[in-house]
């Protein structure tokens, strides 16, 4: 018998497989739903930066959020809540807390352990209503925060949370879309240049409920938003969109998880990003899990990155796990590239200058996501924000 050793094939220990673990019976997590969860900060080992979940993140810059005590007090925000929506601070023992999920990593658990009160948004209106919340004064102290959004059965709403100013923030956002409800949730990160923001969104979408979830990251030094969406009721529908524009020295990361838990669920994931300037860095990881009970699932995820200058890096990692054979469709796509020369040629051949053609192509590329936002006021603002990002490149 010939003995085949790993050395023969040049196999190396997998960086995230725990091959060098003390315990030789160590088995890495086999499925996306199998990751350890805990509400306790101390249950998660200190982060070294080689863990699968952290290896693409600038761990040094986020140390305080991983390890230090966080200020979990209530913060100021502005809002103008319409009828049929309540916005309030609630205590840790409120039953709405922990209704959508639990932390799967150390920074998220640190925020959970630290928060004193949670911001609760509850929608009951069956007529479509729009709630805007603006946070601009979080300051530079390390904070932990918690938000719970509950869309009551058959309610219909758009909730836009816009963040700006300084921040050193780790937060958890729980979202529960109850039976037959429709929620359009938009999270806009337009922080100051030095801000650091880590967020985990835990989302449960109930029977025949519809969720549109959009993450827009424009400003901040490190912004990492990880939405985990569970289509847990039959016929649940989830559309997850993302738009990011990384400039010089910015790290924008999103780890998206779509879990088709119940039967006949439909999921769409579409994230688009642009990168410009030295050290502009983006990470997109898209995990889709179609569970054993996900019969009749229809799922598609994609990520597109447009690289505008030299010296940038975009990681794009789609993962698809399917545990049942009885699905309607599942697919994924990822592409990172420079300008399409044929698009530029077409526009220039109509007399449009090269600079204007480039501007049109970038804005066009990103506006596919902007058009999904479903709020004219915000769409107009995003268009001008993208314009000024592009102008920044000329400076």
């Amino acid at each position: 018998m010939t003995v085949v050793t790993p050395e023969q094939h040049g196999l190396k220990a997998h960086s995230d497989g725990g091959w060098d673990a003390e315990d030789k019976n160590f088995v890495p997590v086999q499925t996306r739903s199998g990751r350890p969860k805990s509400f306790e900060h101390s249950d998660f080992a200190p982060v070294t930066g080689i863990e699968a979940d952290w290896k693409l993140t600038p761990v040094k810059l986020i140390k305080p959020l991983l390890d230090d005590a966080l200020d979990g007090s209530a913060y100021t925000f502005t809002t103008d809540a319409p009828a049929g929506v309540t916005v309030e601070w609630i205590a840790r023992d409120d039953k709405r807390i922990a209704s959508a999920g639990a932390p799967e990593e150390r920074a998220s658990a640190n925020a959970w352990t630290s928060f004193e009160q949670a911001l609760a948004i509850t929608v009951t209106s069956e007529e479509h209503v729009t709630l805007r919340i603006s946070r601009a004064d979080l300051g530079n102290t390390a904070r932990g925060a918690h938000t719970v959004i509950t869309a009551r059965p058959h309610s219909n709403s758009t909730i836009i949370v816009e963040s700006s100013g300084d921040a050193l923030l780790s937060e958890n956002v729980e979202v529960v879309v109850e039976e037959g409800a429709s929620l359009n949730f938009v999270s806009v990160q337009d922080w100051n240049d030095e801000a650091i923001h880590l967020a985990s969104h835990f989302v449960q979408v109930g029977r025949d409920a519809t969720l549109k979830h959009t993450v827009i990251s424009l400003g901040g030094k490190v912004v990492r938003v990880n939405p985990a969406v569970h289509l847990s009721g039959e016929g649940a529908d989830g559309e997850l969109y993302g738009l990011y524009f990384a400039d010089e020295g910015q790290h924008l990361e999103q780890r998206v998880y779509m879990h088709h838990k119940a039967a006949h669920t439909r999921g769409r994931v579409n994230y688009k990003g642009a990168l410009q300037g030295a050290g502009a860095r983006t990470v997109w990881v898209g995990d889709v899990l179609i569970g054993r009970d996900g019969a009749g699932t229809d799922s598609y995820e994609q990520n597109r990155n447009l690289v505008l200058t030299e010296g940038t890096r975009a990681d794009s990692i789609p993962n698809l796990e399917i545990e049942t054979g009885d699905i309607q469709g599942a697919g994924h796509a990822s592409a990172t590239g420079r300008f399409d020369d044929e698009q530029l040629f077409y526009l220039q051949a109509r007399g449009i200058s090269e600079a204007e053609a480039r501007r049109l192509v970038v804005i066009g590329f990103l506006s596919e996501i902007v058009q999904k936002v479903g709020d004219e006021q915000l769409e107009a603002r995003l268009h001008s924000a993208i314009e000024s990002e592009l102008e920044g490149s000329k400076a």
Partner: protein
Amino acid sequence: MSVLSVKDLHVSVETEEGSKHILKGVNLTINQGEIHAIMGPNGSGKSTLAYTIAGHPKYHVESGSVTLDGKEVLDMSIDERARAGLFLAMQYPVEIPGVKVADFLRTAKTALSGEAPALRPWIKEVNSSMKALRMDKTFADRNVNEGFSGGEKKRNEILQLELLKPTFAILDETDSGLDVDALKIVSEGVNRARENTGLGLLLITHYTRILRYIKPDFVHVFVDGRVAEQGGPELADRLENEGYDRFLTDTSVA
């Protein structure tokens, strides 16, 4: 009267197998108002001529010249050529996600004329051209060429031809892939543009059928990177009956 003149044009293109010489000395003169058909078998260099005149970066001019009223076109950037009055209706127009037809047309018109067109007359003009080309009003709100059928893309090209009013237009296989109804609509659009603006046309085609609707003044047969024969409209009829075999037997020996 404007004149577009191509003189001893040699063009190569980079391929995986190395540089390939495609145009081998093309001579052609088009006066404003004339219709020239360029016909030829696949791979003879017809499209290369079209894209070289328009300035596509893929094509390298080895020697020769293309002048518009004496000015060297080959020294101009792509958009300068368009502003000088040249237009290329493409065989495979690309999709431009997120850019609406209406916005694109207005941006192009503004770039060509140096100022934004007055809104009301412009919208009226766009609508009437779209109507004439049997394009639904919703086209204006769709992204450029995105999800368009082959016929819709060609109509969109001719819409631009009508609205942007070039001095010379090159139509690269505008007839390919069109059914007879679409072919008539597109041809009518081209004829209308010519009547309205008196533009010169370079009609590149593999088949003779578009020439039933757009009557050429001159026909040039393109073989192996140069004009092998030229004549009047009767040459097209002869090609219809005989095909390109007569020309191909000469070159296939080489």
